[in-house]
């Protein structure tokens, strides 16, 4: 593994006709945890989807580089194999494909032909990670996300992250819909993965998650860009005072962008 280096420069993204990201810039390096916070509708999830390459998000300007390589030129699967991972807010349900089969296919896609993971090794690893997340064994044989509760889907996202061992982990509202117990297990999974050779970008609406996952940097997004950055103390301040003081400080009346909810 090499130390990851993500560089986002003046990124502009449209969804349909509407510009959602309006010049977003950020650098994230191995060992760091960055939290992106902000009210709803300020472009946080758009950032995550655009970096990962969702086809509905059109990049109209700026750069995204991972280890000096242009990410925007890569297809979604190539981005993943370059070490990126997005734990999604609304993961798809895929009928007829078990979580285990899917994960084995994903792992082998990284390892390449002739270097496939052995079944025994895979099962051992899966059991181990599922126990960290307090997931029932039956999960691996259930169809991917089909009929999963909101909390189960989120755990499954983190399970995938633990199995695939990406270098750049992006977590999009992983805490939404989680009760406090589930939040603890999910946080444990993330903390287990902290490593000098791994970087995290954690998108969250609430400060709550950051009680369990300690960020190194906190950024506030409004109007499709970062308007304020600080250390972990900024998150605490936001929890106490809300977002309005930042708006006042910067003279922002409407923090939202476009139509995004």
């Amino acid at each position, binding site marked *: 593994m090499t130390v990851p280096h993500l560089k986002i420069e003046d990124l502009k993204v449209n969804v349909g006709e509407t510009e959602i990201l309006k010049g977003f810039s950020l650098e994230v390096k191995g060992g760091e945890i960055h939290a992106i916070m902000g009210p709803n509708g300020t472009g946080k999830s758009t950032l995550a989807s655009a970096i*990962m*390459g*969702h*086809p509905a998000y059109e990049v109209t300007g700026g750069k995204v580089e991972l280890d000096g390589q242009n990410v925007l030129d890569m*297809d*979604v*699967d190539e*981005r*993943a*194999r370059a070490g990126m*991972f*997005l734990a*999604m807010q609304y*993961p*798809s349900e*895929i*009928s*007829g*494909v078990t979580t285990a*089969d*899917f*994960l084995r*296919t*994903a792992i082998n*896609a*990284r390892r390449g032909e002739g270097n496939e993971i052995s079944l025994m090794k895979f099962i051992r690893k899966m059991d181990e990670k599922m126990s960290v997340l307090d997931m029932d064994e039956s999960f691996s044989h259930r*169809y991917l996300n089909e009929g999963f509760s909101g909390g189960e889907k989120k755990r499954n996202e983190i399970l*995938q992250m633990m199995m*695939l061992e990406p270098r750049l982990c992006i977590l999009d509202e992983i805490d939404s819909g989680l009760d406090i117990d589930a939040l603890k297990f999910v946080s444990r999974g993330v903390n287990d993965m902290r490593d000098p050779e791994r970087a995290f970008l954690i998108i969250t609406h609430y400060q709550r998650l950051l009680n369990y996952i300690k960020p190194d940097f906190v950024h506030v997004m409004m109007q499709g860009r970062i308007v304020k950055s600080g250390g972990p103390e900024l998150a605490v301040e936001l929890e106490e005072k809300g977002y309005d003081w930042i708006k006042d400080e910067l003279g922002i009346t409407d923090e939202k962008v476009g139509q995004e909810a």
Partner: protein
Amino acid sequence: MTVQLKSNFDRESIMNYSKQHQEPDWLLNLRLRGLEQSEVLELPKPEKTNISKWNMLQFKQPAEEQLTAKSAHVPSELQGMIDEQEKGHLIIHKNGIPVYSSLSDDLQKKGIVFTDLKTAVQEHRDLLSEYMHQLVQVDEHKLTALHAALINCGIFLYVPQNVEVDIPLQSIFWQEDADCGLIPHVVIVAEANSKVTYVENTFGNEARKSVNHYVAEVFVGPGAKVHFAAIDQLGEQTTSFIYRRAVVQKDGHIDWALGQMNSGHTLSDNTTVLKGDGSTGDTKSVAIGQGDQSENFVQRMNHYGLHTDGQILSHAVMKDSARAIFNGISKIEKGSTKSNGEQTERVLMLSEKARGDANPILLIDEDDVTAGHAASVGQVDQNQLYYLMSRGIPRSEAEKLIILGFLSPVVEKIPLEGVKRRLIEVIERKVK
């Protein structure tokens, strides 16, 4: 040494064939009636599918010297594909000739009959005559009449009252000679409170023009349970006319798992008659259309009894310039109160030139029932694709996973691992 059938298809040749096989009079008469009717009856008219130009008669009957070819071993060509544990309960037809047949002593002692049709005609002629062509009538239309006249192989499976068979019984129709016609007649009788699983696999070489005129009749007795799984994978040049039908008595149950993977033109009609009170049926079918194939699939549940339940599921993938009709029909007759009919038809289009029509049809003559349907025709879900690719799975592999998942309702119902594996292989080959 094959003989052109065209010249066989007359009164004299049918009489000769019947005599050669020492058939009883009732069977000869059935054939002759089929011949007569085939000359006067019209073809069936499946919705939006013109079958009038499809090949119905261009094929050959199997060579006569093969008639005594039965062996104690699975043919060497099939050795690799059949798991060891499958071999104990298996009948193999090669080009319509039974070449291998086995059934454990244990099951024989329980009174179970599982044999090829020619043997059944000799050894169980009275029993067989009670059932054969009772459910699919000779004179329904030209195709059923043709079938009756030309039957050249088949299976007879009889399970006595209260006997439960846990091991799936398998039948393989292997068309090694692609010129040979396949005209099987399958009769399954499950007496009261019995239980049986029948797995059928039909496959053949691609190259030559031929025909598959297939009929299966399944009689599900009171309280009996029958699982019928079939995988059809005949070649591009083989036209298939398939009628699979069941009648279910009081509290009986049938489920069908049909992997309809033929590469040639195919007309496939699957009908379950829920006759007895409390009878239930479940039919699941998956299909892949490719090339310039034309196909017509019907899955029908006819409700007569009280409290009957019929479930229909059809999933299909359409490629290239293939076209297909998928009709699900739930017909609930007057008096079939408290019955329930549900159906789902979904078609996945992989090509702009392909066509697939999914038609859920509810025909209900009774007020006190519940029924529901869902149908969709669409492309691979872009969000699903994105999700899988975001984990590093290349696009083509991700599509394959989604398609396999989409077709899994039948795959997972195949009770024999080897047969399931063959189905997955054929799916993977077809969607490549």
